[in-house]
């Protein structure tokens, strides 16, 4: 289920948002910018889309948007500004700061839902395009062929099971973000599957084994989950190289 974070201080607007989106989305709510920054600071809590009001009790929503865009992990998060301050200046500023859309209040709940669906569809298409060329360190993935490779020239195919392949895709797609076991389960096994959380650990352990020697590291973050990051190759010691040749 897609996650939406609504940064909105008006209770009635929130009632409308919840009613419009209802059970289709997992909606979280922050009544001010400070709480929103705390939630967005937690990588495993990142939403799929942000609904942002401009006038927040502790500041300007557009300033918050500008701050979010400086964060690597939030640069591409789709943001829809929803505001009663719908003058041209605010709209232009919002778009120039990277908002995907601007919905003026009062909005029709049906239109809100339609615009959110459209943005999420576009985000998903962009994500799919990105998936075609996934890579981390010297590990690359060919989604079409369902192959993972290490190295550049020549590329070596890594022999992965379908679940290991899906886990690797999810980790690389997260681009350094921590994924919880629940998120990994959802990606590798699909929604609604009930598997013991620790099953992930077993698959991760096998995946690590198969990627031994590659320039990536699958890191366990205690209490949170896993993330993948690229590592730099160790400098080659010339003396050791000569000894090896001899």
């Amino acid at each position: 289920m897609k996650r939406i974070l609504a940064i909105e201080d008006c209770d009635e607007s929130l009632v409308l948002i919840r009613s419009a989106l209802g059970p289709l989305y997992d909606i979280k709510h922050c009544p001010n910018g400070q709480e929103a920054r705390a939630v967005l600071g937690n990588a495993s809590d990142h939403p799929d889309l942000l609904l942002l009001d401009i006038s927040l009790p502790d500041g300007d929503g557009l300033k918050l948007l500008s701050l979010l865009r400086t964060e690597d992990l939030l640069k591409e998060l789709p943001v829809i500004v929803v505001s009663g301050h719908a003058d041209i200046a605010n709209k232009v500023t919002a778009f120039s700061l990277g908002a995907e859309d601007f919905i003026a209040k009062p909005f029709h709940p049906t239109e809100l839902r339609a615009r959110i669906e459209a943005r999420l569809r576009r985000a998903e298409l962009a994500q799919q395009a990105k998936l075609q060329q996934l890579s981390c360190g010297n590990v690359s993935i060919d989604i079409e062929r369902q192959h993972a490779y290490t190295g550049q020239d020549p590329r070596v195919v890594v022999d992965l099971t379908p679940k290991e392949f899906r886990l690797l895709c999810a980790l690389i797609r997260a681009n350094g973000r921590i994924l919880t076991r629940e998120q990994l389960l959802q990606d590798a096994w699909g929604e609604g599957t009930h598997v013991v959380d620790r099953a992930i650990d077993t698959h991760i352990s096998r995946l690590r084994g198969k990627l031994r020697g590659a320039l990536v590291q699958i890191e366990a973050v205690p209490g949170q989950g896993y993330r993948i990051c690229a590592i730099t190759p160790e400098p080659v010691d010339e003396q050791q190289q000569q000894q090896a040749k001899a």
Partner: protein
Amino acid sequence: MSSSSNKLKLEIEPEIRAMAPDYLARRKQELLVIKNCLSTNKIDEVRQLAHQWKGHAASFGFPELGTIAARLEAAAAARDMVQSKALTDDLERSLDAAFRAILV
């Protein structure tokens, strides 16, 4: 702003319509807050509340309330107490009419 309130013609969904009585009851309470703010010269609070009404009234199916709230927001922003009081009275009349309409 008032014109955008009037443009919201698409039919309100039944789920939202079902919330109308509670919504109006909450507005009745908030109208008392607005009146109290006016009597204590807290005009910025009046502007803020009017801005919020302008933003949600039409979405709940009450564009007339939204239109008056937009005018009240403008009057409060101009710190025009006389006009703000007159518009608060209009808001109350419109609110009563909305209550009567949903009872029919």
